[in-house]
């Protein structure tokens, strides 16, 4: 097995965090998998049976050309084809803000997978709050690179918003990890309101309440 750290030095740090939450040898569905970066990390470092859905044809074709099991599809409409509890983990990394019906997508994920992992950019981060409050403009940064008029992101939320949604859907938050703007894990376990202020990104491990 290739060491996880060797594989993800160049990839998004949240992918490393997500990969570390996944048990080796499990079955994983990555929704919005792009060109398959996470899937490749999982296959090589975790020996998982990894599958992906991606909306952009370019991403899908690149992923399949890398030998990954990826199909073209839409998180909003194509999850119903998967049977109940057919995966150990269903992952949605940096994609929930681009879905039309985020709640429905989360419910479907909880139906398909025994565990659900979601990572999201935190719209409650102090940098975002600062830009809105003092500049009066929608935030554009390295982490949120789009202008309001051309963004694929239609449902931004904060860490606290997401935790509230998770509870509404009856999910249990098993782990919540907060990353700072540099993508490093905030070392201390923070109360939610602080995490919501200092976290640039949140990674959640959820399970359905029994």
């Amino acid at each position, binding site marked *: 097995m290739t060491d996880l750290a060797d594989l993800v030095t160049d990839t998004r740090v949240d992918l490393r965090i997500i990969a570390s939450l996944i048990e080796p040898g499990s079955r994983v569905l990555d929704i919005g998998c792009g060109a398959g970066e996470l899937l490749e990390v999982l296959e090589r470092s975790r020996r998982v049976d990894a599958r992906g859905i991606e909306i952009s044809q370019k991403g899908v074709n690149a992923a399949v050309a890398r030998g990954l*099991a990826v199909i073209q599809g839409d998180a909003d409409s194509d999850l119903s084809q998967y049977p109940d509890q057919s995966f150990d983990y269903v992952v949605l990394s940096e994609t929930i803000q681009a879905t039309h019906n985020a709640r429905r997508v989360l419910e479907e994920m909880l139906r398909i997978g025994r565990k659900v992992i979601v990572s999201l950019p935190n719209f409650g981060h102090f940098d975002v709050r600062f830009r809105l409050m003092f500049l009066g403009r929608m935030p554009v940064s390295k982490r949120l690179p789009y202008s309001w008029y051309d963004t694929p992101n239609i449902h931004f939320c904060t860490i606290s918003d997401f935790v509230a949604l998770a509870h509404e859907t009856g999910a249990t938050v098993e782990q919540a990890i907060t990353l700072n703007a540099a993508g490093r894990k905030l070392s201390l376990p923070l109360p939610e309101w602080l995490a919501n202020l200092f976290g640039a990104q949140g990674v959640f491990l959820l399970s359905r309440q029994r």
Partner: protein
Amino acid sequence: MSDNIAEYETQDALRRNEADHPSSPVMRFMADQALPLDAGVALAPWQIAYQTYGELNADKSNAVLICHALTGDQHVASVNPVTGKPGWWSLMVGPGKPIDTDRFFVICSNVLGGCLGTTGPASTNPATGRPYGLDLPVLTVPDMVRAQKALVDALGITKLFSVVGGSMGGMQALQWAASYPDAMFSVIAIATSHRHSSQNIAFHEVGRQAVMADPDWCGGRYFDEGLNPKKGLAVARMAAHITYMSSESLHSKFGRNLQDREHLTFGFDADFQIESYLRHQGMSFVDRFDANSYLYVTRATDYFDLAADHGGVLANVFKGAKARFCLISFTSDWLYPTAEARAVVHALNAAGASVSFVEIDSDRGHDSFLLDIPEQFRIVRGFLSGAARARGIAGPANPETTK
């Protein structure tokens, strides 16, 4: 090829000889190895002609079966003995190609009902000493696959590394997965469907009617009269050929351009380039293909409906499927549009199978799968490399550098 032509005078005669005595290797099955057919009878004796490329490895794990399309043949990457043309998929199959014969042992056989050495209507009926003609039972895609399975078994291969096909070949690949889920590690089905649509059947019926309306068809016994229904078969091919191309590609290739003339002739000659092109396609087809064979293979695809034996539920077809699947469709393919491939993908997902699916941008219609579409080559190479890694088949020293 010139030697062959001299020997038989015409391509037509050369082709008729290939039906019983192909220049390819042949596996013959006698009375005790009859082939059960969906029509409810058993075929015996029967034979299957095939070509192989590359070497079978020691543990027999690197065999790839390629299934050809409607009027294709076993010469996927070797010169066709009748036309003298290169193999129909030599862009895809060969040393260093996406289906790399330095790495894989590639098998391609002529389909049951074909006319290039596997038993079909042009083959001699041992009961009469004359060609079968319409005395051969109507065949199906599952029959074709059963015949291929018998060949693969006879070659001593218990598990294929991959079954690959486009169009009718893709139907066979899917049928393989349905009939023999343990007999392959992966499946690639390109530009294909899980069943023939009403429109697909309609076009085939036009073709068959054209053949049968030719007086030279003689109720299917043209060989007894020394005739060949060339006109009918050519019209069938012309109609079919239109369905293999897209409106855009026809328009960009031919537009309304006139053929070797300045003005319209106010007659029924081929004024337009597209007419001349289609006539050429029709006429060059009749020398290399048997008219009755055309009836049989089109009928087989019309009868194709994977879900029919599974209560109409496609997902049930793939229950217990263990192979990894790759489906490819093309944006401008209106014969087997992307929605058909997507239906298969959904069924495979519902069955919990591992599946990759890509739609490739191409304006060249259904025929795209046979053409130089680099994206398709990248996909097939990538998918097979990933599968080969998982299967433990040795690869080229540095796959990154092979194009």
